[in-house]
């Protein structure tokens, strides 16, 4: 199996790793870098539990190879909190009971983070469309929508 040396910047920190061609990005994050906040729920890009930001865009890290991330900037859920202050979305999810088991939460946070970057005041439908690639089995989405609305208000 061919090996490749890659460089990725994760949450502002540069990492170098020598990886097999086939290593999935999600495994690089979870197992090599031990950033286990990014979860795996389906292996087929449907559930969104593995969503991270790649150069600011939400991507599903279970269907991207680690080598494809070479030279890119990645943000995971562990990178949301800054200087001990929760991101508005983290606060919103906590305040509005936007999570139950917590397994989909990191992916939900990263997808909605990208949404609020491009749309400061999303409507309910825009929020629902944005998170439609992230499955939640616990909340029925009602409080997730409220959490994102609350974060948008906090940031306004």
């Amino acid at each position, binding site marked *: 199996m061919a090996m490749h040396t890659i460089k990725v910047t994760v949450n502002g920190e540069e990492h170098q790793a020598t990886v*097999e061609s*086939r*290593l999935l990005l999600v*495994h690089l994050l*979870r*197992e090599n870098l*031990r*950033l*286990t*906040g*990014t*979860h*795996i*729920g*389906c*292996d*087929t890009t*449907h*559930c969104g*539990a593995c969503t991270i930001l790649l150069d600011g865009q939400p991507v599903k890290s279970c269907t991207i190879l680690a080598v494809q991330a070479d030279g890119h900037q990645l943000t*995971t*859920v*562990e990178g*949301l*909190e800054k200087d001990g202050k*929760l991101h508005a979305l*983290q606060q919103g*999810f*906590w*305040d509005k*009971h936007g*999570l*139950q*088991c*917590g*397994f*989909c*939460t*990191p992916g939900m*946070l990263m997808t909605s983070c990208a949404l609020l970057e491009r749309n400061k005041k999303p409507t*309910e439908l825009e*929020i*629902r*469309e944005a*998170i*439609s*690639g*992230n*499955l*939640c*089995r*616990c*909340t*029925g*989405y*009602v*409080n*997730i*929508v409220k959490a994102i609305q609350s974060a948008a208000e906090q940031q306004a």
Partner: protein
Amino acid sequence: MAELKTTAAVSGMGHSMKRKEDPRFIRGKGNYVDDIQLPGMLYMDIVRSPYAHAKIKSINTEKALKIPGVLAVITGETLAKYNLHWMPTLMSDTQMVLPVEKVMYQAQEVAAVIATSRYIAADGIEAVEVEYEPLPVIVDPFKSILPDAPVLRTDKKDKKDNRIFHWEVGDRAATDKAFNEAEVVVKQDMHIPRIHVASIETCGCIADFDRVNGKLTVYMTTQAPHAIRTVFALVAGHVGLSEEKIRIISPDLGGGFGGKVPVYPGYVIAVAASVVIGKPVKWIEDRMENLQADSFARDYHIHVEMAAKKDGTMTAMRCKTLADHGYADAAANPSKFPAGLFSICTGSYDLKQAFCEIDGVYTNKPPGGVAYRCSFRVTEAVHMIERITDVLAQELKMDPAALRMKNFIPKEKFPYKSVLGWEYDSGDYAGALKLAMERIDYVGLRKEQLEKRAKGELMGIGISSFTEIVGAGPSKHFDILGIKMFDSCEIRIHPTGKAIARFGTKSQGQGHETTYAQIVAEELGIPASAVQVEEGDTDTAPYGLGTYASRSTPTAGAAGAMAARKIREKAKKIAAYLLEVSPDDLVWEVGKFSVKGAPQRSKTIAEIAFAAYTNHPQGMEAGLEAVSYYDPPNLTFPFGSYICVVDIDRGTGAVKIRRFFAVDDCGNIINPMIVDGQIHGGLSMGMAPALMEEITYDESGNVQGGSFMDYLVPTSMETPSWETDKTVTPSPHHPFGAKGVGESATVGAPPAIVNAVVDALSHLGVKHVEIPMTPERVWRILKEKGVAL
């Protein structure tokens, strides 16, 4: 709900306290099984059968073992040497861990590869060569139960057919008599299809056997860690695994919904591998394995009949049901109840006669009968009664709300003994339906429906007035594999007045770390923020049967209150000593004892706790702690009324839920925010099988719906904005009047949605629609009735 007894700073019952578990989850610092890495850990992957029924002619592991990094391949033969190739199910049936002779369903475990990385383990399973000889497949339970059907469970020596059980409840003769005398009889067939909980975290474990001290630690996705420990000890006792040397740790769980109650073969193989190799072995299912091999629910084929008078008075109900359990009865029902609590099927109505018979049958499908956010077959029962009630209303041309109001058990009749033997604890069914009708403007909706119908638009309104049955024990009637269904709590108060409370249950997202702390706060006045709640580690938590069937609050929550009350009794004696009065002269207000008539003379719980370790009365044991094993005197009976409004697209057959109003009554409430969240999630898992989810098999037993490509879990786009309200009818026998709520909405929602769809089509002569009501299924009906666009 009575007035709040505590301040927000204490956050006892009734406060919408923000969840204590959330700070770790929103930071990505949860600790799920796959997040755990142990030194020297190996990975396991599983070879699975492509056939639904086949003889295994040979398994060749040579090529796999040549791959660098592959350490072992475990087969049925390997396990048979230790007599570990079969195991009991929770219903005392038997199930293969790995097969020696034949496979019984597609995706069944055939062999396991142990390797140094998960990628190499995956390479290994590709290299294992298995030769099969396909056998005839039975997927249809109606064919399987025929006398001449080939016997599937040839492993059972005396087995002459495919029947698992035949169960009857009620008085057949009296019910038949009521039917013979009935003025009106309606009948309906319905199928509650096979579905899957699909928690976003799949199942998995790390088995870690320490050869030096003989201790086995298993980090495992389980809702019932103590029961699992005992099962492991019973299954593997003969190879030296003794219960005191087994530690089950259930860390954070990414959802459970019943799917993490059973013992799956993968767990047992991982344990065997770790024992043989002497290193930790991790096994994590992928989504396809999860959807194709684990935790199936439902699959009930029901024929139901209702007898009534012409004025709408229900007089009797009878049903005949065929339950497809797959190749093993792996349900997690209490042992005396092969069809679970299906006999709650008289529902919210004052029926004078009823009779049910249920046959369980084997087929070439994965083991079924596990719950899907439902307490032991209650969803099937509620679907049946709420559907046949609407069929009766349609036959009599009565409004379905009026028919329900006419037949509800009146609130004066509680506690109410149902004709099938349950004693309902409390209820106000008319009150809940009335509130739902007011909140959604039922009268206005009916008017709108008439206008829409005149314009050719298809709008429907559906009602479901369900009664749940949760909180098992009592242990007199309820056990799993003989272990009584009590639950437990141990509380220790520290010298500085803070507490740790451990429970025999296990949260999968329900928020126990918060709600259990609130129970202790309510009882002792210690702020919930200062009560550390722990569950899921069998070395530290008291023995309990776990979290499923909405039993945590009714059983372990009750144990929490009872343990706290024991502590309060001791605290009273210490306070009397400190205040130099008799205990009888003290009164308890939240958080302190004070002297009757002299409220300024008092001792807070923190002062008492400090004294318990520094200045306790002579003759009394030091310390302030208690344990309670709570055996409920009865089950609890949450209820509610749901009203659903749908619009049907005549072009596509798509059903859109325009509004859904849920009125729930779960007795007294610990945390209203969390209860609302449970209802939202439950409604979504009620909508899912009504509109989208189903796992089917072709004639050869090939699973259709084995990935998220085909098995449609609702997204934010299909899920409506649920509307909720509540009535509060406390349980008279529960220590703080609570009933449990986790599953009510999943149980109650599906028939409301079906009733709405049928209502939208009733003027076309439609009397029933099977679930899931996919656009295709609905469109075919529209086409047949000549209204498709």
